[in-house]
């Protein structure tokens, strides 16, 4: 009971946990989803083939 009770005791702590939790979940989900997508489409996207054309340039 200790952990959850401490979470709900102070509203500021509760809100803070929700906000940081949402931020972290968003970040984790986006990173995972994008990496899966890039894995499925490996070799098809521009970022996979642009090294062939960028070598001689500065950018």
């Amino acid at each position, binding site marked *: 009971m200790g952990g959850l009770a401490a979470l709900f005791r102070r509203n500021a702590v509760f809100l803070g946990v929700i906000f940081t939790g949402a931020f972290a979940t968003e970040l984790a*989900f*986006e990173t995972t*989803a*994008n990496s899966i*997508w890039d894995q*499925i*489409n490996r070799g*098809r*996207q*521009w970022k*996979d*083939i*642009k090294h*062939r*054309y*960028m070598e001689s*340039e500065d*950018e």
Partner: protein
Amino acid sequence: MLARATLRAAGAAKTGVTGLAKRNASTSSSSEAAAAWKNNALLASSTAFAIGSVAWYYYQFGRQPYAMTPQEEGLHATRYPWEHEKLYKTFDHAALRRGFQVYREVCSSCHSLSRIPYRSLVGTMMTVNEAKTLAEENEYDTEPNDEGEIEKRPGKLSDYIPSPYKNDEAARAANNGALPPDLSLMVKARHGGCNYIFSLLTGYPEEPPAGAVVQSGLNFNPYFPGTGIAMARVLYDGLVEYEDGTTATTSQMAKDVVEFLNWSAEPEMDQRKRMGWKVMAIGGVLFALSVWVKRHRWANIKSRRMLYQDPSIGSTPAAKQPGSTFRR
């Protein structure tokens, strides 16, 4: 019941004033048989009429209208397994780059691509410097200068790919009266999309089949509605030289240029599919959650048992009067 009552009323009306003196028609056994026969006939005829009118309406308006002959409709395009049309696949950007090369070297002599600016090529199939170099090969009108003259300037990334003709009339005049359509949205604009364009590009026979009438100035292509197309076959093996070493066969070039034209019609496709899968994932989790919450909330209601104990039988005192609440 209603039909029977109606029939009875009609029978009573027919017998007229004399019928009033008689017994009720429905109680007499001989007129009962006659009423049943009439009833059946009425039901059967109205059913037949309903079926007949539906059939007639379908015959008149329900059928698919084929106003044109199969030749005028054009041959249906073969369905090919396009990789980029799968729900989880992006465009193959190497193919887009090759397709753009085919467009530039072959198609662009007649067909415009007026909705594609150079900037959209950057990060899709070209680097910034390549796109800038390409844009600078063409001249565009400037703003009017101090004397009101409009001068020419080299193209910038924000400029759109120039059209081969000044306007549609010039295009018609140069092409024997036929207007080469703009290709920006062609994949969306034609029935069959990618399959149609690929079939059209690769579907020119060596010579028109026996009996086919081809007007002068037109070419035979079975996939083109009407089969007479002003564009001649343009793609031949080895027509362009790909920089990535891909062998430029007719079908390879057609496939690449079709994928490029699909990109020009739907440049947002990669992003759309990626976002779509994220929506499906989040939406799936939320849906499962809502199902769980519903079951949780209903658990009490669904698992409860309601008992009724007659207050007059039990050991508990009976309710004082009807309607008064009984509580244990």
